């Protein structure tokens, strides 16, 4: 005879518990947190470099840069003016989890910070399962990748609040249709916001900065 015993427990309940603690701490602080996700090489770090150069005298930013190996991205962010940059080397793991982020945040003073950005490991599959306590996921698609990316990785696009179409300066050289990528993304997630930009030429960057400032303000307002 075989007997079935009901368990009813979320597989990632431990991750979700820690993510909940992070979210609650950030909520009390009124600190906006974003989880940046994409395939490798779609321009996350470059956008953060430009954002630091443009806004680090106005906004206090805490940055976490996740990579499988090396702390190269973190070094780039420090060079671009980041004063509060924390590398996480996963040494093989294909995603960040809430425990890794929590360990960094436990040793980091968040007083007076305006923005926490977590740059996830470049991967459009695995990071989607792991809540890091963020307010929203920002998913990148560069124009060199293909406008059907949202259809290929629906889970990530479904869970993201904002899609950044990056490397817009390369559009003339690519068979990439911006209207198509937006339509594809909205087939998966009708509520997803979209910003098109080029970190290199600065095209569209003002809209990104406006989006950041608006969301930072909304988060602070909610904490009052």
């Amino acid at each position: 005879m075989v007997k079935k015993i009901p368990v009813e427990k979320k597989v990632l309940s431990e991750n979700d518990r820690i993510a909940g603690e992070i979210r609650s701490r950030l909520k009390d602080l009124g600190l906006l947190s974003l989880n940046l996700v994409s395939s490798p090489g779609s321009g996350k770090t470059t956008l953060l470099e430009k954002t630091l150069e443009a806004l680090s005298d106005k906004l206090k930013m805490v940055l976490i840069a996740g990579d499988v190996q090396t702390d190269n991205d973190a070094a780039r962010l420090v060079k671009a003016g980041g004063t509060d940059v924390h590398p996480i080397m996963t040494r093989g793991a294909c995603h960040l989890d809430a425990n890794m982020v929590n360990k960094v945040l436990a040793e980091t003073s968040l007083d007076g910070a305006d923005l926490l950005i977590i740059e996830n490991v470049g991967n459009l599959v695995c990071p989607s399962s792991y809540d890091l306590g963020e307010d929203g996921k920002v998913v990148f698609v560069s124009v060199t990748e293909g406008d059907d990316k949202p259809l290929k990785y629906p889970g990530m696009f479904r869970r993201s609040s904002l899609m950044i179409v990056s490397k817009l300066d390369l559009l003339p050289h690519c068979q990439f249709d911006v209207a198509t990528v937006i339509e594809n993304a909205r087939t998966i997630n009708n509520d997803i916001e979209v910003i098109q930009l080029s970190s290199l030429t600065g095209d569209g960057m003002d809209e990104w900065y406006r989006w950041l400032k608006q969301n930072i303000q909304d988060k602070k307002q909610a904490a009052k």
Partner: protein
Amino acid sequence: MHELAIAESIMDIALKAKVDKHLDSIRAVGVRIGVMTDIVPEALEFGFDIIVKDTALDGCCLKIERIPVRGTCRSCRKFIEVEDFVFICPHCASRDLEITQGQELDIAFIEIDDDEDTPVRGMDSNGEENTG
């Protein structure tokens, strides 16, 4: 390929249940996996079989139930099943959908041998000891 990490979380929960519920052995762990979770069942089973070797769960297998993406259309109020991640109502073409299923990543049950030689204690829902 995060199935190995997911398999590890399942193993941890099953090992804890084994201790908490005073079980001799666990034959299988039943999991519910929503289609939207980006988890490949075959890879999860493969990873689970490997990591439980030489643990107290050696020989235990996974029983996976795939949960389709389902919900209700907020415009026409009809029940919908989302296929291939096209979140558009098949009845009225609205994109305003309330999704209620398909995100699951849950442990539903564990299976144990239940014969008279291996009494199982502490299983009753009312908390009374059950010897068998």
